[in-house]
């Protein structure tokens, strides 16, 4: 192969095949695809609400003397899922809260196992969970508005204060 480019024309067989048969209108296809998106958004809402409830139970178990490693694993995994779902479903606030909670849990991971629960740290985690609820209620959106930006700034401030 020399440095000279070779141009290869591709036979347009897909267009011919797509024109065969009865076919479905693009309008119907669009409606069906958007319905799938809406169904997944609803599923996300339910799944995240369940994950938040389970996280609160894990916090309660930790307060009662549980191992903080278990709490870290559960919340870090939940935060990553929230980040991913925020990306895929168009919920930048959920994505950002998930990112921040995950960062916070990496700090937590450095604590020795079965360490004494810290009230401020628990409050910070709970603030992140509350922020996730706000993001879920907000639903899909294009950009982070001013009020949401203030919420994220407060989460960062909380993390810095505790850190």
């Amino acid at each position: 192969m020399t440095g000279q480019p070779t141009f290869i024309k591709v036979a347009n067989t897909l267009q011919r095949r797509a024109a065969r048969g009865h076919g479905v209108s693009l309008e119907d296809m669009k409606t069906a695809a958007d319905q799938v998106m809406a169904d997944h958004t609803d599923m996300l809402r339910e799944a995240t609400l369940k994950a938040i409830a389970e996280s609160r139970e894990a916090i309660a178990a930790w307060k009662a003397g549980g191992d903080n490693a278990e709490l870290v694993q559960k919340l870090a995994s939940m935060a990553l899922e929230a980040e991913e779902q925020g990306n895929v479903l168009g919920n930048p606030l959920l994505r950002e809260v998930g990112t921040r909670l995950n960062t916070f849990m990496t700090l937590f991971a450095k604590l020795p196992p079965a360490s004494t629960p810290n009230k401020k740290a628990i409050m910070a985690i709970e603030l992140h969970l509350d922020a996730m609820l706000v993001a879920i209620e907000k639903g899909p959106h294009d950009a982070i508005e001013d009020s949401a930006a203030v919420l994220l700034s407060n989460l960062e401030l909380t993390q810095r204060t505790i850190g």
Partner: protein
Amino acid sequence: MRLTRTFDFSSFTLLLFVESEFARQLLTDMCRALHFNLVISKRDCSTAWDAFKTNPVDIIFGDITSEAGLQFLKSVRDIEKSPNALVPFIATSIKSSIGSVASARDAGATEFLKLPLSGITLLERIIYVIESPRVFVRVEGFLGPDRRRKQRPYEGPDRRKPATTEADTSNNGAQTSKPERMAT
């Protein structure tokens, strides 16, 4: 895009390679809603490659957010070992930075689709690759679609000739066999 037009995808086979379980399930369900005959979805490079080798795949959706997706795209475009190096490859990503788009383009992606997506953006990309297949360019180390959307003759002076030679302005278009600078 006129939404009253009809298409029949019932003979098409799609291959989805998306690592994120959530994104893979969403894209799979959306494509099934468009009445594709077969939607094969894989989460890792090796099983996606096996599926590509053993099925008559018409269109690939590949998540290039991670390096594995880019490697898969490069393997698909490897004319020495790929069963169909010219297959339309729609690169998906949660990132839309210039770097991500450039990486997809340089690896030979046909189209780029940023997540999150809607029904209309998904359809637009599919219809585009079906109706407007691009000419492929093969040069050393690269096989991929020609990025030029329009074929235009070069209108400036021919700088390849020695300075002492008079510019021949009568041969507009003579250089069109050379690719123009790639557009993103």
